[in-house]
């Protein structure tokens, strides 16, 4: 296979990944590394480098649209980015120490957990009325637009949320993924931030988190232009198309299918990691 054929295949696969990722809200980043390693036979370090770059592209591309709607909370995002960026540095440092097979196994576990999260129904919790003194001092509470005007919300459990963000950042730096599912989990479940605010703020944070480890990966020679080019262009255009059709698509079935694909990839990553194929 020549470089032209290889590039076209990777471009197409990345486009589909980005499209499904944005349609289902699971992000295209999680499937890029298994795709490049299991299907295209790339070394996992090149795959992580390319994936990281595509994560920054989709996050920034989507955030550009989201921030203007007024859902994302810039203070929550910036405050928690302290945790995710430090975590990302740690994760990128760990990536140099853990053997490729170990990274593959961790990746597989994270994939299986993402598949589990995607199978659970989404819900919007009732907003808490009382405020947390720490949140008040940090000016984290905010409002979001709705049909009935601005709705106020309060932020809770800041230490727990912050710790979860450290882990999310470390996984992002180690595996080259956006860790969006875990970021949403930290904000939505732990900190009681409304779902829509959590998802948009998470998307906003993903780019900064990924940038924190991407610099290190670039310096370490993990980012190959020939491989990252079709991945970045494919995932970006796929996710942009995905946001366009989001309103009309029946996402429940798609989430189940995509969740199943992620589960299968997770099992294969773990199997190949344990049998020393990385």
């Amino acid at each position: 296979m020549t470089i032209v054929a290889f590039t076209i295949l990777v471009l197409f696969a990345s486009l589909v990944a980005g499209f499904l990722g944005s349609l289902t809200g699971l992000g295209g980043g999680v499937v890029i590394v298994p795709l490049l390693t299991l299907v295209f036979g790339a070394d996992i370090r090149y795959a992580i480098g390319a994936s990281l770059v595509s994560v920054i592209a989709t996050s920034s591309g989507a955030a550009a649209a989201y921030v203007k709607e007024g859902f994302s909370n810039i203070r929550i995002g910036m405050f928690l980015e302290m945790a995710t960026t430090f975590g990302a540095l740690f994760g990128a440092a760990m990536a140099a120490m853990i053997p490729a097979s170990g990274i593959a196994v961790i990746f597989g576990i994270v994939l299986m957990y993402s598949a589990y999260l995607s199978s659970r129904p989404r819900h919007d919790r009732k907003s808490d009325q009382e405020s947390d003194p720490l949140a008040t001092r940090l000016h984290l509470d905010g409002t979001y637009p709705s049909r009935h005007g601005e709705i106020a919300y309060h932020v809770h459990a800041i230490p727990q949320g912050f710790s979860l963000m450290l882990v999310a950042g470390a996984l992002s730096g180690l595996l080259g993924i956006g860790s969006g599912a875990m970021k949403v989990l930290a904000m939505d479940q732990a900190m009681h931030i409304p779902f829509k605010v959590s998802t948009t703020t998470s998307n906003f944070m993903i780019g900064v988190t990924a940038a924190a480890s991407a610099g290190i990966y670039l310096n370490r020679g993990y980012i190959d232009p020939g491989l990252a080019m079709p991945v970045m262009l494919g995932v970006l255009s796929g996710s942009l198309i995905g946001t366009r059709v989001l309103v009309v698509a029946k996402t429940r079935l798609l989430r189940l299918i995509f969740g199943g694909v992620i589960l299968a990839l997770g099992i294969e990553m773990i199997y190949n990691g344990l049998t020393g194929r990385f």
Partner: protein
Amino acid sequence: MKNAWTDQQIDDIIGTLLRVGVMVSALLVLLGGVLYLVRHGNMLPDYHVFRGEPTDLRNVERIIKDALSFNARGMIQFGLLLLIATPVARVAFTILAFALQRDRNYVIVTLIVFSVLLYSLIGGQR
């Protein structure tokens, strides 16, 4: 406080900044990519064994130099560098916005995030 932006205005500017950053970098990657395929398209891809990129494609200064001499891989890498720099620029802008709002705590928070990003991009270089 007259010069301070509202949070919504900050969001709007950030949105534009991100969009422009992504568009310009995607264009550069596309341009470099076409050039790369025209020049090297018939060779065989080799990502199976990890060797690491040559120093030319790791270092910020050298990437810029390569890109300016229309080296295809250098141009793609420069586009990717710009993409990585986009969230960094967003954080830099947020420092300014919080400073104008006289929100000292958040100037500090944002400065911390900014230094981590700079360290990653430049500090890790040998």
